[in-house]
């Protein structure tokens, strides 16, 4: 899209801002108005020398931490203005605005159950007790003394999205409760070994130091497989919204189990059957039974460009790109259909393809200017194929609520407007 705009002597950044501010209709007017750009913008375009080359820029230290360009101010978390309350709520990552596989920390999706606590790391403690030989208490300094490791994994809320209308307009509305980061911390296995697990140890109840004192029960197998106690995210200390100073990371498991502000690990023989794992994060089937302890996020993908809320300004070359992920391991293949699901072709996967991480896929595409429906489906290394929404609904019904990993098609109109094909 930006390439098209550049050809028409229009700032791609201006267009992008207008997408964000006014949606596709405003952006479309860019094409109409291309012959008469504002005078102020013309001054900075070839063959003239731009104003920002004629005087020094901001001095060193004007932003000791740093913020994005003011021209990117619309790229922020997607937070509904109609939430019942804001201390138990979620904010979504603007997936359609991001490139690559890493989510910037400021745009990482959020889900809180009792607000975001402000925790002094000097006073934070992790208690490890229950079915262990030696119950232990760790300071943050203690935990940072352990051998550390860094790994890239996605994190996804289990309710991303639901099974009932209204469905969202953008990729972020649909699956923006999804992000991916490089996490640094200590292997949970190492810390459990430090305490010495007793043979009866089958579960670990993790508790957060937030106002919800949220608890989830983790099978011991996962704790000993790839779970981490995390203190850093994308190179910096965790943000408060992500559990500062310490969180649990369970790669591939539903987001709320990755307990933030982690203060206690209670090793037990049985799960807690806490409120979150009985009344909330359970999946209700049409016959009235409900699945409990449904931990894994199954294989899934979504096209992020072009996607809902965007517009193709001209026919011709456009790259289709998106992200795929699976809680069960690596993405093996992503297939893309440009003809409403009749035919599928294999997309190119961008390296690195990591286990339980976002994988970027790309497919070159010549849009002929006619209406089209495009969609992607992920296949993971277990051979699992991402299903359609209709296939999921046929088995699970509309009350299932969590773990919707459906294929999501985008409709492209003759005027280039991209909308949710299932909405």
């Amino acid at each position: 899209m930006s390439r098209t705009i550049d050809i028409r002597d229009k700032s791609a950044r201006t267009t992008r801002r207008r997408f964000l501010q006014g949606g596709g209709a405003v952006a479309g007017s860019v094409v109409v108005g291309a012959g008469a750009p504002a005078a102020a913008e013309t001054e900075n375009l070839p063959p003239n020398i731009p104003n920002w080359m004629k005087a020094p820029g901001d001095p060193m230290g004007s932003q000791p931490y740093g913020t994005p360009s003011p021209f990117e101010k619309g790229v922020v978390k997607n937070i509904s203005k109609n939430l019942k309350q804001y201390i138990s709520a979620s904010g979504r990552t603007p997936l359609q605005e991001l490139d690559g596989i890493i989510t910037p920390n400021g745009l990482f999706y959020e889900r809180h159950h009792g607000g975001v606590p402000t925790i002094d790391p000097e006073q934070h403690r992790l208690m490890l007790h229950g079915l262990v030989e030696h119950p232990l208490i760790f300071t943050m300094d203690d935990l940072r003394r352990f051998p550390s490791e860094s790994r890239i994994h996605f994190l996804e809320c289990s309710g991303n999205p639901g099974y009932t209308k209204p469905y969202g307009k953008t990729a972020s509305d649909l699956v923006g409760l999804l992000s991916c980061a490089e996490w640094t911390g200590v292997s949970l296995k190492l810390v459990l070994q430090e305490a010495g697990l007793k043979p009866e140890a089958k579960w670990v109840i993790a508790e957060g130091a937030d106002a919800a004192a949220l608890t989830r029960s983790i099978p011991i197998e996962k704790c000993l497989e790839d779970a981490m106690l995390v203190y850093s995210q994308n190179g910096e200390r965790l943000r408060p919204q992500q559990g500062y100073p310490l969180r649990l990371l369970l790669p591939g498991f539903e987001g709320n189990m990755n307990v933030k502000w982690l203060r206690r690990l209670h090793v037990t023989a049985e799960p807690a059957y806490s409120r979150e794992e009985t009344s909330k994060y359970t999946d209700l089937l049409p016959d009235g039974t409900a699945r409990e302890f449904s931990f894994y996020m199954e294989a899934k993908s979504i096209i992020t460009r072009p996607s809902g809320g965007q517009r193709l300004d001209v026919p011709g070359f456009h790259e289709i790109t998106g992200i795929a992920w699976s809680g069960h391991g690596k993405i093996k293949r992503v297939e893309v259909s440009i003809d409403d699901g009749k035919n599928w072709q294999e997309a190119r996967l961008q390296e690195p393809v990591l286990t339980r991480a976002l994988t970027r896929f790309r497919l070159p595409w010549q849009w002929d200017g006619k209406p089209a429906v495009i969609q992607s489906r992920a296949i993971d290394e277990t051979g699992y194929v991402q299903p359609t929404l209709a296939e999921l609904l046929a088995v699970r019904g509309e009350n299932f609520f969590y773990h919707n990993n459906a294929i999501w098609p985008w409709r492209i109109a003759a005027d280039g407007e991209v909308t949710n094909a299932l909405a």
Partner: protein
Amino acid sequence: MRWREICVIACAIVLCAFATGAQAQGAYAIGRTATAAEIAGWNIDVGRDGSNLPAGSGSVSHGREVFAQQCASCHGDKGEGGVGDRLVGGQETISTAKPIRTVGSYWPYAPTLFDYVRRAMPQNAPQSLSNDDVYAVSAYILNLNGLVGADATLDAKSLAAIKMPNRDKFVGDARPDVK
């Protein structure tokens, strides 16, 4: 001193070192021993069978007062819901197109109610209610759902003895369920 006595003393010294808990026992010797008092202070986990429920008790009538003061502004005067979840009713709706999931219709274990109210409620001041008040509020919510009588008083034993209507409706994860 005979060799055997030396051994006994040496063993005693080693055991004392373990017993003081001055140092962790793992390969890295990082962290310190958590004392029983520290664990008791933080371990508020209540099992589904009522294990680790504290001493104390609370009546439905007292729970009605506590609920009016602490809970009704979010959950409604009779637990009908508002900013906070609906807590009451919904029985017989769980297998319909519009399930109403409440404590009475959906929650499988009554002790979980005590656990959650104590750790997370009221939302603006969690862990501020006494154990007696938490028992009382739990009793009131269960009474509104028809699960205990209006004259009931609940404690650890009687709360754990309540069989919730939806207890047997939870099953394991059958995924991959779409092939």
